[in-house]
């Protein structure tokens, strides 16, 4: 390496990389982040699929059959594990239920008052009085259960055999074994989105912090006696970025090891990989651009400020575009090929997250990918140009925070 620029960048990047990778913090983050994320994702999935509504309600109906069916549906149904009391309507019962629902010691969550339909073919009037107006789970479960009981009764009244009714009431399953499970693939894309979001945020801030560290420890002066601020900036961004890539690499390898170990045949049925190698390629490409864009912004922020507290005040410049991507992701999920999705995913600050997400969801035309790469490269060049100027002057300024006017003046200094 005879080019002094490359040599110095290499030295700075190597130090930054080695010092960071060796820290306990890096080890912890590498192990803890996927563990926590996995626990959260799988934990919430598990809770969602296994938890059942367990309220205690009363059903008041003159139709004995309807009462029994509904009770059966609610006490032993697919997603309910309720306790149901069935009563025949009377004024005494009404008084008792009203008393109970206002009694703090009672477990009654609500009561359903069924008034039979006035004409055949109509649904009965259903009035539900809940202890708490916010009890949406009980209400929803009840609605689903009543619907299915009514449907069963009506089908039975039309002489449909019981076996047919059972089959009809089963949820359908789409066989996607030819292409892999859509839901799993979607979840994987979603996870990759969050992974990139977190890593860009984390390592962008790390770049800024590392600059502030050097400012507070005043080692800059020694470094600047032999190397140029541009070399320092480039080395720093590359070094911190390489740490981020290493971390992602470790996670990817770990994920592959788990997937191939046979632990997860049910996660990836019929041998279709959850994440394709093309997806990984795009992920790495877009991660690098995302990191470059956000860390150069962060480097400029770091050069402008003197302490982490001051940095905190400015980090909205990093958070707002990322939060915007977060909001946009819902629009993209619904219509990944819409004009809106295309436009926002071409915005250079959003491309790393959104274009990559779209690539996972749909078939993005090559021109859009090329255009986004071009726009991002252009943006990176501009931001680096500004950042290196701010950096050049800002790192030698201690103490007072520069005003906007002063910062513009810095652009002129060489």
């Amino acid at each position, binding site marked *: 390496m005879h080019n002094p620029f490359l040599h110095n960048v290499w030295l700075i990047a190597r130090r930054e990389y080695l*010092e960071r990778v060796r*820290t306990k913090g890096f080890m912890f983050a590498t192990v803890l982040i996927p563990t926590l994320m996995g626990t959260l994702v799988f934990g919430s999935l598990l809770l969602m699929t296994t938890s059942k509504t367990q309220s205690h309600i009363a059903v008041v109906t003159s139709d004995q059959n309807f009462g029994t069916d509904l009770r059966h549906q609610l006490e032993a149904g697919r997603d309910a594990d309720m306790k149901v009391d069935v009563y025949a309507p009377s004024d005494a019962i009404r008084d008792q239920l009203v008393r109970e629902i206002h009694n703090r010691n009672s477990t009654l969550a609500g009561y359903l008052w069924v008034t039979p339909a006035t004409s055949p073919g109509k649904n009965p009037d259903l009035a539900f009085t809940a202890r708490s107006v916010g009890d949406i789970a009980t209400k929803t479960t009840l609605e689903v259960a009543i619907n299915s009981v009514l449907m069963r009764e009506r089908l039975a009244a039309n002489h449909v055999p019981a076996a047919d009714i059972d089959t009809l009431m089963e949820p359908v399953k789409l066989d996607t074994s030819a292409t892999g499970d859509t839901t799993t693939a979607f979840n994987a894309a979603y996870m990759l989105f969050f992974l990139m979001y977190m890593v860009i945020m984390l390592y962008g801030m790390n770049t800024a912090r590392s600059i502030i560290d050097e400012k507070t420890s005043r080692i800059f002066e*020694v470094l600047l006696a032999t190397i140029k601020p541009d070399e320092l900036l480039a080395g720093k961004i590359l070094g911190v970025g390489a740490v981020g890539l290493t971390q992602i690499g470790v996670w990817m390898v770990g994920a592959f090891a788990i997937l191939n170990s046979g632990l997860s045949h049910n996660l990836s049925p019929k041998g279709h990989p959850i994440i394709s190698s093309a997806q990984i390629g795009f992920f790495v490409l877009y991660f690098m651009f995302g990191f470059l864009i956000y860390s150069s912004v962060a480097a400029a922020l770091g050069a402008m400020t003197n302490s982490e507290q001051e940095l905190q005040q400015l980090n909205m410049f990093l958070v707002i575009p990322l939060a915007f991507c977060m909001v946009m992701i819902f629009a993209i999920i619904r219509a990944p090929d819409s004009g809106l999705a295309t436009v926002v995913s071409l915005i250079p600050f959003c491309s790393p997250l959104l274009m990559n997400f779209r690539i996972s969801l749909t078939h993005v035309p090559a021109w859009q990918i090329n255009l986004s790469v071009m726009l991002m490269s252009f943006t990176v060049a501009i931001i680096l140009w500004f950042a290196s100027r701010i950096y050049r002057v800002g790192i030698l300024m201690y103490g007072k925070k520069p005003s906007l006017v002063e910062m513009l003046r810095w652009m002129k200094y060489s």
Partner: protein
Amino acid sequence: MPIVDLQNIRKVYGSKVAVEGLTLSIEPGSMYGLLGPNGSGKTSSIRMMIGMTIPDSGTVNLFGQPFNRSLLTRVGYLPEERGLYKKMKVLDQLVFLGSLHGLDTSLARKRSLEWCERLQIADVVNKKTEALSKGMQQKIQFIASLLHRPELIIMDEPFSGLDPVNAQLLMDELLDQRARGRSVLFSTHRMDQVEKFCDSIALISRGKLLLSGTMREVKSKYPRNRVQITFTGKENLAAHPAVAEARIGEGIAELQLYNGDDACHLLADAIGYGTQITRFEVTEPTLEDIFIENVKASFGDADSGGAVDA
């Protein structure tokens, strides 16, 4: 051929003139003292000397060539604001800083260990920097600036914060460097060290050069008109017509005469008055005297007309 040659350099930050028309040159193998009160432009001048900032006008020559960055591997710099990577181990840190100056890793490691041995900090090479005392950190930075055997050594306040034993240790090393033919520039407030060891000095105040030259040249401009007297008994020294300024303490008098030649009259008159004199010495002004006199005058000038701070 001077090692450092600054011609009429000027640097303005916004509306503040940091350095105004500074010209100085440092000869090979000499020890050069850069003096000046706080905020006088010493650090700004040094930064321009090593290309950390670029002068608005004027020229900087190093080793007889116009400044270019490749010359920096021949310069060792200890900044006034000390700084090291706190979390890095001492040896790793030295090797890193050495390789930034163009050394390869194994050579940087070998020299670092030698230097640590020399400066009596060999036992801490594997400790983290933040665990060390301030004096030790300063030694490490001192070593870092010398690892690549620079021909020009620039040290901004190298002894501030050091105890006398360690200050002496580092001073001896700098003298040793000079003996090996290297040029040393250092800025300091400690006039006694400058007076004892420097071959040449420059005094700047408010960004302007007040005086410069070899120690002899500077001092020869000032007459031998200081008198130090140790005495007992009564005295009437301050009232003598030859005395311009007097500082009389308990048994000691420091006098400044209008004319050094009057010293023997002063002595005769004092003995005649009945003062018992045990020591009577006529000296040239100390560097400290010259420093204070010039700096005070420079601030007086500024007040009466030439505004340096706009």
